[in-house]
């Protein structure tokens, strides 16, 4: 009877098409909207995920997210080094500075100042597009992110209306009236603010930065082998009074801040909810009509000896079949969207959890849409078949 159920569904092309279209749109919109939302949330922690060598981030206890800089005394990283279980600890400067471009315009940039001796926190050598990380040791050297170099920091066109030239090695910028020479171009995970990111050494960054009493933004630390980073965080907090987080804790803190303080979660949440409701409405209405039109035949099957359980299985199978096709098509189109938007400004993240979540949502729509039909099948009176 499984094959009978499938034939009854698929040969009713208009209804099966409508149901699949409804579920496809629900699946596509839920997946696409959530992928963009996750992409945006992922960008808020782009700098943390790119800085993956340390286990711990130590900072002022009042810091709420990665861009919320509350500087520490320059000597604080030495205190962290003294905490039991810490393998190493290095300073990190993070701030925003104005860069003066060749054409005289200004561009606000994020600047990351890395420990002079180890350059911990620098982009991985694999992500260097031009130059080497070690080139930061050259006089006035900075490494610029590829997207920033190609767009906001690019050089003006040589003739009016011509294309802008991406910043390259050897080009010079002015950072807060200090000369900075581009020694490398690197790929980075795009950040929420979409400002260019410049890497330089800690001592040079603090030279570029306006004079302040405190300039140390974060201390990056590594736990000794065998030491639990989470427990080490607690120890640092207890010993120094500073806040200390593992990479994932700091990511959660940052994402949590953005979730609470920007409108994106509400807007995307509404889109996802509407997609769910519209998908459920179309699927329920169409599937309900489909069952209603087939009720006479289901009654005939019941009169001919089919149990209610068999008819329920047939009905659920039909729902799950259109659900699976709709889910697959929707996710496929969303994936295509992701592939097409790769490398553009658009944020798009498609983790397996999103796939599972969308599958769950579509399954829920299928269950909801089949509930009405299932009830009809259960209470179906086979004697109805004798009515003409």
């Amino acid at each position, binding site marked *: 009877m499984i094959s*009978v159920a499938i034939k009854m569904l698929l040969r009713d092309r208009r209804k099966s098409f409508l149901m699949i279209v409804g579920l496809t749109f629900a699946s596509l919109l839920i997946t696409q909207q959530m992928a963009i939302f996750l992409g945006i949330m992922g960008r808020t922690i782009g700098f943390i995920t790119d800085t993956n060598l340390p286990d711990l981030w130590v900072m002022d206890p009042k810091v709420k997210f990665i861009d919320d800089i509350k500087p520490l005394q320059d000597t604080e990283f030495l205190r962290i080094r003294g905490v039991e279980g810490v393998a190493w600890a290095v300073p990190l400067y993070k701030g925003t500075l104005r860069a003066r471009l060749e054409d005289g315009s200004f561009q606000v940039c994020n600047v990351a100042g890395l420990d002079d001796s180890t350059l911990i926190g620098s982009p991985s050598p694999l992500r260097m597009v031009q130059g080497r990380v070690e080139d930061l040791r050259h006089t006035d050297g900075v490494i610029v992110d590829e997207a920033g170099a190609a767009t906001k920091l690019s050089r003006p066109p040589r003739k009016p209306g011509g294309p802008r030239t991406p910043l390259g090695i050897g080009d010079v910028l002015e950072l807060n009236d200090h000369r900075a020479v581009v020694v490398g171009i690197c790929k980075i995970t795009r950040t929420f603010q979409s400002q260019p990111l410049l890497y330089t050494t800690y001592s040079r960054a603090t030279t570029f930065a306006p004079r302040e009493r405190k300039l140390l933004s974060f201390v990056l630390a590594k736990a000794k082998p065998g030491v639990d980073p989470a427990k080490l965080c607690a120890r640092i907090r207890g010993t120094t009074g500073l806040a200390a987080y593992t990479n994932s804790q700091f990511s959660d803190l940052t994402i949590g801040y953005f979730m609470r303080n920007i409108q994106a979660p509400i807007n995307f949440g509404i889109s996802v909810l509407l997609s769910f409701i519209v998908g459920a409405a179309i699927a329920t209405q169409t599937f309900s009509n489909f069952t209603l039109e*087939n009720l006479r035949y289901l009654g005939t099957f019941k009169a*001919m*000896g089919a149990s209610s359980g068999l008819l329920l299985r047939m009905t659920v199978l039909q729902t799950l079949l259109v659900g699976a096709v709709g889910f697959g098509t929707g996710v496929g189109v969303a994936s295509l969207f992701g592939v097409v938007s790769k490398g553009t400004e658009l944020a798009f993240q498609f983790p397996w959890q999103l796939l599972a979540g969308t599958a769950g949502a579509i399954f829920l729509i299928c269950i909801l849409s089949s509930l009405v039909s299932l009830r009809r099948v259960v209470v179906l009176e086979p004697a109805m078949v004798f*009515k003409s």
Partner: protein
Amino acid sequence: MATNEVLAVRCRDVKKSFGQGSARVQALRGVNLEIQPGELVMIVGPSGCGKTTLISVIAGILDQDEGECRVYSEDLKGIGPRARTQYRGRHIGFVFQALNLVPTLSALENVSVPLLINGIHPREAIARSTEALAKVELVERKDSFPGELSGGQQQRVAIARALVHEPKLIVCDEPTSALDHETGRKVMKLMRDVVLSEDRTLLVVTHDARIFEFADRIARMDDGRIVELTVAGPKVDQSKGAFQ
């Protein structure tokens, strides 16, 4: 007509009502009926006299309120809903007035449904359904959908579906009501020639007096009771094929 000890159908004082209070309708007011195996019995009577209710009770689709109804000695009310459904699937065939052929299934697939319900392997079901369609001389249209068949052809598909699982009892509700006289006669001839056998009983509800001649006996109902049971010999030339 051979008389066996085991009756195909035995109804004793069967009563059935619908609704409650002032809306209560007494559909069957004490029906007594005995049908021998291999008999073709027609139930006739005016609309609302209880014909359809009676065949629903006999076929195990409805439970009677009072009285006893046995099909080949089996008390369908007493065996419980699950066993009753299984009994229907294995031992009773149906030809409905509206035929109820699934429009999205081919003739062959429609015929195979009772076998699939009984858990027969699809391959075997297809083979047996092809045989059943051959019996009603429709095997060449096995891949046609009901919408592509004439009324008489659809009726033959319904008959093939009713007999494909070789039931002991076939219940037909107004099998000729939607057919012209000639096609109706052909269908009834087919029923006698192909469907009826020593082991298989036919119970036909009809208004169509033109087919009475095909019955062994005619039970006339009125107001929920069988008021007359007459013997009517078959007038079909058995030497001729069904559609000559």
